[in-house]
């Protein structure tokens, strides 16, 4: 191959790779903007308050009410609460906080060093990891969102970083609000989200209903 052919070839390769990278960056920017729009349109609601709007969700919630005094974990089921015992009453624990373990794919409701409740979770994948550090529950929360570019939505979302960007929410749904079983079955096993923390439906609903703005969130 002649040197000039190589030089022109490398130039063409550079053009294509720069174009590809720009497309990728643009797509990421669009996803981010959509989430910011979602945050802007989110209704700031007062706590505690709970409503169920569609039948499917109501059925999921009916499953969620099955609790007992046994403190053992339920087998992983995104339709059921992660533990068999009742959710903690946060009014009794004013210093409670949420601790997310990325390595264990769990969310712990903590009071000091004591674990009050353990939830199965699915955090961000390698490509879009969940940010680590200490954050706070933010004012933005809502019952449903749908992101057209990732073709995924979720119910019962609560923001903990960047005001509507990083959220706790249910396992993902399609645009009609139907849960995507294939993704939902990875709960507690594999980090597959786009940076948010996915939870079982009743767990996400409990966070949406009961966890107040300003609660500390630790992610390791």
């Amino acid at each position, binding site marked *: 191959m*002649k*040197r*000039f*052919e*190589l*030089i*022109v070839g*490398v*130039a*063409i390769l*550079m*053009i294509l790779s*720069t*174009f590809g*990278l*720009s497309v990728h960056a*643009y797509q990421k920017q669009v996803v981010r903007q959509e989430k910011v729009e979602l945050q802007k349109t989110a209704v700031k609601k007062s706590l505690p308050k709970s409503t169920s709007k569609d039948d499917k969700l109501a059925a999921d919630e009916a499953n969620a009410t099955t609790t007992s005094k046994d403190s053992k974990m339920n087998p992983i089921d995104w339709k059921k609460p992660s533990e068999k015992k009742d959710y903690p009453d946060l009014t009794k624990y004013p210093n409670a906080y949420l601790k997310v373990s990325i390595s264990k794919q769990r969310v712990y409701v903590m009071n000091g060093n004591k674990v009050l409740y353990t939830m199965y979770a699915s955090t961000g994948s390698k490509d879009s990891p969940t940010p680590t550090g200490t954050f706070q529950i933010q004012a933005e929360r809502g019952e449903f969102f749908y992101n057209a570019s990732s073709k995924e939505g979720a119910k019962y979302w609560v923001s903990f970083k960047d005001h509507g960007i990083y959220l706790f929410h249910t396992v993902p749904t399609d645009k009609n609000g139907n849960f995507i079983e294939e993704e939902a079955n990875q709960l507690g096993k594999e980090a597959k989200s786009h940076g948010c923390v996915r939870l079982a439906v009743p767990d996400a609903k409990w966070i949406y209903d009961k966890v107040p703005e300003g609660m500390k969130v630790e992610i390791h």
Partner: protein
Amino acid sequence: MKYIKMLQAWLLKTRHFKAEVLWGVGILVGALLLIKIVGRLVLGTTFLGFGTIIKALLLYMVIIFVIRFAEIKLKK
């Protein structure tokens, strides 16, 4: 076929290394600026920044000079 032959003849023409690099840089910067302008017109936002074009150009220059260096070493 006629145009392919013309292109081949143009590619095989003997040039000085400096002229070859200038052609390469011209193609690269020209195409990226074209993508930048079309991106801006179609999307209405910055699709490709000047920073990205400069970075691509620098990387290209590094690759070209590595190739040249290797060529000189191999000739020796």
